């Protein structure tokens, strides 16, 4: 997508975010490079990932790494490398696919963030069950999503880029109805 007047490249949530409603903030997050990693053999790939990016291959429902470079569990036998350009050595042990422009990436943070997501997501994302570094492939409204708790009160949410408007609409509606009840 490009801006209609200037023809400059735009981000998935261009013109939609940021939003600050009630106690919650919703911002678009630039994660850098996104690469899906589908290992041929997980043990060999895990070693290569440690050598190249100092990341462990994440167990199901978990994320490894931090702001600079993360590996987010992304489905059966799949992880998403977030941040760095993948080292060429990884290609020996896994199918690597560039996903950089394919996902709308937003961060929902604030006191009520868990309560907002509780209205949309059929998984318990409260702090007791879903701690920092936990992730889930699940649904947000009707959208297939990847949801990761990156900080105590902050969630990283990824959906297909084409669903950016629906994602923001669903989240903003939930944020507004929650704020109205406070």
């Amino acid at each position: 997508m490009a801006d209609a007047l200037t023809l400059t490249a735009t981000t998935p949530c261009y013109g939609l975010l940021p939003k600050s409603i009630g106690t919650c903030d919703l911002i678009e997050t630039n994660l850098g490079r996104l690469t899906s990693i589908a290992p041929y053999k997980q043990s060999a790939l895990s070693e290569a990932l440690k050598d190249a990016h100092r990341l462990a291959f994440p167990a199901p429902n978990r994320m490894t790494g931090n702001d600079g470079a993360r590996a987010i569990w992304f489905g059966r036998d799949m992880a998403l490398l977030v941040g760095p350009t993948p080292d060429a050595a990884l290609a020996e042990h896994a199918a690597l696919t560039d996903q950089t422009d394919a996902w709308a990436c937003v961060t929902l943070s604030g006191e009520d963030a868990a309560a907002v997501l509780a209205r949309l997501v059929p998984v318990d994302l409260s702090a007791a069950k879903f701690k920092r570094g936990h992730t889930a492939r699940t649904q947000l409204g009707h959208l297939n999503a990847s949801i990761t708790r990156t900080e105590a009160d902050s969630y990283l949410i990824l959906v297909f880029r084409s669903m950016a408007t629906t994602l923001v609409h669903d989240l903003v509606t939930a944020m507004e109805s929650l704020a109205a009840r406070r």
Partner: protein
Amino acid sequence: MRLPCPICGDRDRREFYYQGSAVALSRPAPDADAAVWENYVHLRENQPGDLDELWSHDAGCGAWLVVTRNTVTHAISGAKLASEAAR
């Protein structure tokens, strides 16, 4: 209704896609008798009680599961990966 995905844990039914009885896991040999193939393609038992079914965890890990569901009570008594069940 919640299904116990072996990878993701207990998940809501809306994350899954239903395929039906897990007959596809016992596909006859290519040169099997025509009657065997007819049975495989068209005939189903449809008896009340525990039934092995194929469910896809579409909105989750993406794995195909064999879920054992009681067709009378809807009680789920187990789930395993289809890749393991087929071995």
